[in-house]
């Protein structure tokens, strides 16, 4: 009997381990994740700024990616740089225009990360009314709208035509513009269609114009502010052929041009002179994040292993009295070979790890946008005056430079006097030089409906010898100007599968 009781007691004590197991199951919650809507459910501007910063982070993902960042691809796809034969042949499919929808890298990455930035900004916009009305709320909404427009603009110019690119560009297929307000984000399983380029630019401009009225004057490094939005507007209006608006928007930007003394420090992140928009990285705590400079070169024990180097003609078109030659070019030595290395992304002062902030939009571009718009409207003297402001600030006085006897350098700055076609060429020349290797060139050629023309005789080495580009010319109107919709989208979205760009 005693045995029997103890046996039963033991059994019951075992069974007691199983009480309340159901509760354990139901109480389990995620540990390091939050529901974004819950996180943004209170009147807490800081939380919303965290969410906006997350969206900037997504933009940074596709600008700074060390394998396929937009910051570099805009030039690798153009005539500014040429592949160095002693590198890893990274982005070869892009430089040689061999890309197809399944080509890894830029095609997929830009599409992915831009839409993630858009999703992040839509989440902010969806919850915005949890904030009290006022400047704080307006500033958050302004940033979110700005990011949304910016990411869509990048998508539109990569995968679709630019309105000024050809006569019928506005009626060709652009991208899908995803707006929470229009119910675009309601259905996760949606298989959206591409809209036209014209429709895209209406929405991009709509978001930016709204943002301009809401956003604060200063939000700190790496974030959009009033100058940033107007800077973007000056660019978008120019792309859209709305030249007077481009001039007006440019005039709203108060950021001062970097001086010739400041300019070198801009690229080592020693100063932020002339920066209107940048995507920033903290090189201490984010030392594992992308190093954008790898797109152009890596350096190891004194050897610079270049991937892409400056085109011989571009390098030689810059006068020695122009500070930008020194900002842009350095002699990149790898073993027995020397190249015109790209200097803008070597790293912070004293570094060669390629980890620097992304210069998305600078005051110089705003000025160039304005000069080009003035020229397009026929205001030639105005355009020349605007251009001369930039040229003067890039001139290095005689006492500050090492005289190069090979170059016919000016002793003092003399304003340019071009007119007509020469002025137009001068504006484009200054634009090419000023913005070289900052992701513009491919889009500038594209939006102007021009051809990509690499000199078929220029090799990769510093003296123009070496291996010339495999593909020298992409004529205006060629399908390669519109990158293909990535294969993953084609596979997942039968609607867009019917809308692939021609040629792919």
């Amino acid at each position: 009997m005693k045995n029997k009781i103890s046996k039963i007691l033991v059994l019951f004590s075992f069974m007691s381990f199983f009480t309340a197991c159901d509760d354990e199951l139901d109480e389990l919650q995620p540990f390091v994740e939050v529901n974004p809507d819950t996180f943004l459910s209170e009147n807490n501007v800081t939380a919303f700024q965290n969410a906006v910063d997350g969206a900037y982070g997504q933009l940074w993902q596709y600008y700074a990616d060390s394998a396929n960042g937009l910051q570099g691809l805009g030039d690798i796809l153009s005539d500014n740089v040429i592949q160095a034969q002693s590198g890893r042949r990274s982005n070869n499919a892009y430089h040689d225009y061999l890309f197809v929808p399944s080509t890894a890298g830029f095609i997929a990455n830009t599409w992915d990360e831009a839409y993630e930035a858009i999703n992040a900004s839509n989440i902010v916009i969806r919850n915005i009314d949890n904030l009290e009305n006022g400047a704080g709320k307006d500033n958050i909404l302004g940033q979110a709208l700005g990011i949304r427009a910016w990411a869509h603009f990048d998508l539109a110019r990569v995968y679709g035509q630019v309105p000024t690119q050809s006569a019928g560009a506005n009626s060709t297929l652009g991208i899908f513009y995803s707006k929470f307000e229009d119910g675009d984000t309601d259905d996760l399983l949606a298989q959206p269609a591409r809209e036209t380029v014209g429709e895209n630019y209406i929405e991009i401009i709509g978001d930016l114009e709204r943002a301009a009225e809401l956003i604060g004057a200063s939000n700190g490094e790496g974030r959009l502010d009033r100058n940033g939005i107007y800077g973007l507007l000056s660019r978008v209006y120019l792309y859209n052929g709305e030249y007077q608006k481009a001039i007006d928007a440019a005039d709203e930007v108060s950021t001062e041009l970097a001086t010739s003394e400041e300019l070198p420090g801009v690229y080592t992140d020693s100063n932020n002179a002339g920066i209107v928009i940048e995507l920033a990285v903290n090189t201490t705590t984010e030392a594992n994040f992308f190093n954008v400079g790898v797109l152009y070169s890596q350096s190891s024990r004194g050897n610079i292993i270049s991937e892409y180097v400056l085109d011989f003609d571009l390098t030689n078109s810059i006068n020695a009295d122009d500070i930008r030659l020194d900002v842009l070019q350095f002699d990149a030595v790898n073993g027995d070979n020397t190249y015109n290395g790209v200097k803008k992304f070597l790293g912070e002062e004293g570094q060669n790890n390629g980890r620097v902030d992304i210069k998305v939009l600078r005051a110089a571009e705003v000025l160039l946008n304005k000069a080009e718009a003035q020229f397009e409207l026929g205001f030639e003297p105005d355009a020349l005056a605007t251009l001369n402001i930039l040229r003067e600030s890039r001139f290095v006085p005689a006492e500050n430079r090492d005289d190069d006897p090979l170059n016919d350098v000016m002793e003092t700055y003399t304003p340019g006097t071009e007119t007509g076609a020469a002025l137009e060429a001068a504006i484009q020349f200054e634009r090419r030089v000023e913005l070289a290797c900052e992701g513009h060139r491919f889009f500038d050629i594209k939006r102007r409906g021009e051809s990509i023309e690499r000199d078929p005789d220029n090799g990769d080495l510093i003296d123009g010898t070496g291996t010339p580009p495999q593909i020298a010319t992409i004529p205006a109107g060629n399908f390669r100007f519109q990158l293909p919709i990535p294969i993953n989208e084609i596979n997942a979205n039968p609607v867009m599968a019917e809308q692939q760009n021609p040629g792919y």
Partner: protein
Amino acid sequence: MRTKFSGILTLFLAFIVQITFAQEKTISGTVTDNKGLPLPGVNIIVKNTSSGTQTDFDGNYTITANRGAVLSFSYVGFEEKEIIVADNTSINVQLNESEAVLDEVVVTAYGVGRKSSVTAAISTVATEDIEDFVPSTSIDNILQGQASGVQVTAANGRPGNTAFVQIRGVGSLTGSTTPLYVIDGVPVPIRENDQFNPLSNINPNDIESVSILKDAASASKYGSRGANGVVLITTKKGRSGEAKITFSSSYGFGERIPDPFDLLNAEQKLEIERQYADLGVSSAQSLPGATLNASQRASLIALDTDWEEELLRKSVIQNNALSIAGGTEDLTYFLSLGYNKDSGIIDRIDGFERISARLNTTYQAKKWLNISANFSASRSSTDLPRDRNNVQNPFRGLYDYNPYAPLFVRDGQGNIATDDLGNPIFNRGGGIFFPIAEALTTEPEDSRNLLFIGNLAADITFSEKFSNRFSVGVINNRFNGTTRSLPGGVLQGFVGDANFPGTQTNSFDLDLEYNVNNLFTYSDTYNDVHNLTASFLLEYNENIRQESFTTARGFPTSTIPFLDVAAEPTRVGSNEARRILFSQAIFADYDYDGKYSVSASVRRDGSSRFSPDDRYGTFYSGSVAWNIAKEAFMDGSIFNALKLRASYGTSGNQEIPDFEFLDAAEFTTYNGNTALRPERFGNPTIKWEGQSLLDIGLEFGFLNNRINGVVDYFKKTSDDLLLNRPLSTTIGDENNSLVSNVGEIENSGIEISLNADIIRTEDLKVSVGGNITFIKNEVKKLINDQDIIRGIFGNSILRVGEEVNAHYLVEYAGVNPDNGAPLYVDLEGNVTEEFSNSFLKLQKDKSPLPSYQGGFYGSIKYKGFGLRGDFVFRGGNYILNRQRASGVFIGNIDSNLREEVFNYWRQPGDTNVLPLPSNANEATADQFGTTRFLEKGDFIRLRTLTLDYTLPSKFLDVLPIDRLRVFATGQNILTFTDYEGDPEIGIGSAESGTPDGNTFDPNFVPGAFSQFSYPQVRSYIFGVEVAF
């Protein structure tokens, strides 16, 4: 729950002090066959208790039993004998060869059963089947070819790496087809997503048997975790009697299995460069073959580096194992120690090392209470070379590096150049962008795992009819990882901070899974013929994982691998994850006189992986068996065993990440500020993946059981399949997918296994056996019948009516004989020189899944000599040979290539050639996703060949040892295949295609492609085994 768990320990201590003395005695004796020869391995069980033993090599046994207890002696091929314990302490038994064979004890779901009455399809792999494989360091690798219906593919050849195991085809499409492993009742947590797999840390020498539960009759008992099948691993136990000490030691070496093709040598490489340059391939213009003069070329040709020799080496494999087993009346113990080392074939790193210890004990605490405790601890350390398709992978380097590039820099005289310290300088020229040989020493990455597995069980016998088993199992793994980038090292030059040279990341992961279960059992026999057993199970299982890491930079010296000396920390992190499963189940088994058996089970599981509304799933099974051999009309037939059985049941799968039913965002930083990043969209409607499995099987044995086998037909339908359903990228999801229940697939097939003892005499025994499985699979349903295109490269597809994961490629039509341009077939069937992704199409009946697979062996034993060969084979699968593509692409002329590149189009009319190398053809020829690189994966491989010699006992009599065996084993020594590479492909390339290179991609399809993963190894091992 945690406090409850600690309470159990106290409870056990309380039991242990209540020592009582049972009325037991020790009985010993010898078991012989009808010719008087000793029978080793005879099972001896004290009926109606859980105690039992086996005879040793000489047929001797010792067991404790009460006076009046019934001892049952059983052995395959012999009649069972029962003897009542009387006054004698010595019982010698002679067994007669029997007709009622196959009556082994098999480990079954939540218990043991007799093979003759089990209604389930179970394959058992016993210790003697696997001892030749022991040098394989992971249990799952050992199972290859051993059991029908079980497909095992080594993930890759890295020492200590695990395998992909599929039981009866692909039951599930989520990353994992891995079955549930249960070690002595403790489920083993395996998470491929985190590359966490404790199987590699278990000493295979400790294993007594492995039972593979394949059909619903037993898998359903594991409910939600049984859909991929269940592998029950039982470790060895001691037997009462004098201690048996067994020691074994082996030593050997391994090398990469040679490729069935040649790479170019220096002279050939320079020549092909010259030819490409002449043909106008621009990327060849600046290569040495095009630019150097004859004498410069001659000096390069003289270098002719064999990169395999420079980067790889012969691995050294060492295994030592010691076990001590024995027991007294109340207590049995099995103690083991193991040491394994495999240096791996990559030169300059340490490879894999494991040391393990185990103690298994049972104790008869009271007459009605038996407690047992199994504990094991093991520590393994392994180097982790980069296994991705890039310049950091040595297995890519040996194919890529040009043979005219030397390992070390040469000075003007051709001597090896040295640095200030006199060390040779690694070469970075000649197409070597990243010196892997150097990086292996300056970028070390290694991990240490400390694994504890403990299992405590208490068996209570209430009465003859009621019993209860309560058990607690714990698996605890501590992972320490160190990733260093030494100051002054290769990577630091590229990405380091000049002011803070060197980085190091220490990561620490703690995994704890505990499992508490209670099984209450009623068993009864009516009228001597109706046998009924019914059990009620409660089970609670929780998995807790904690992770943390710290990264610092700025190391003053490369010799101190600790963060203390670092200048500053740069990143830290920690997180936790949990998963809970709570289950209730009822099992019932009935048989009539051992002839007709019926079993049924119902189990209800609740999982935290699903939303509260869809949390519970109910799984059931029913099975019947007819033991025909026991029927009177079978008397005198040639059959010793003949059993027909059938089962049907359901099980489930929850192998998806946690909390997929919730929207989630995570925190990261942007420019040093906190940033909220949306992580995923939740799918609140996801529910259990279900599976129903029908099995009909016939087990037979005849001619004194010298020929025996099993035939099974099965049909497995998996519905509500959990899979990452692709989303339009425009939605902005981080993975562009939503975990969903997407459809239904069906696997059906026939498994046959057959063993025959062709000759069975005293001196000579010849036996052969094998198994083969024919399997078909088909996608039956998908949401809206819409195709799902998957795979890391988008080259696999799910389409209704087709094979699962069929290859999705552009069809290649060879080379245009007129101009040497590659040709493709568009969707209308036109042959064109264009290549477009829009030509992608499903390749009918070509998938990575084999249509047949199996293994066979032959064994000869003559006196003390033994020779056994085990083959594995597979066929009907197709592999995309991306590795070959890399070796022939025109644009890869700057790397080394395969010899076949000389076979390009040279003049009109050439066929069966590679495309003419030109810039224009590079655009169309250099495409991975085409049928040009799709190859049959059929192969037969001699997995092991073992020659051994066991010293006859007459020689041993003079020595104080019972057994001495010497052996030599070769693994992977022969392979027959047409595949242009190694056809045994698991992961292809572990890190390919994922953004951060470290996480397991849910889209990954094992075996779909090859891409420079750690290759399989051929090894030769010599060893000795002593028992005393």
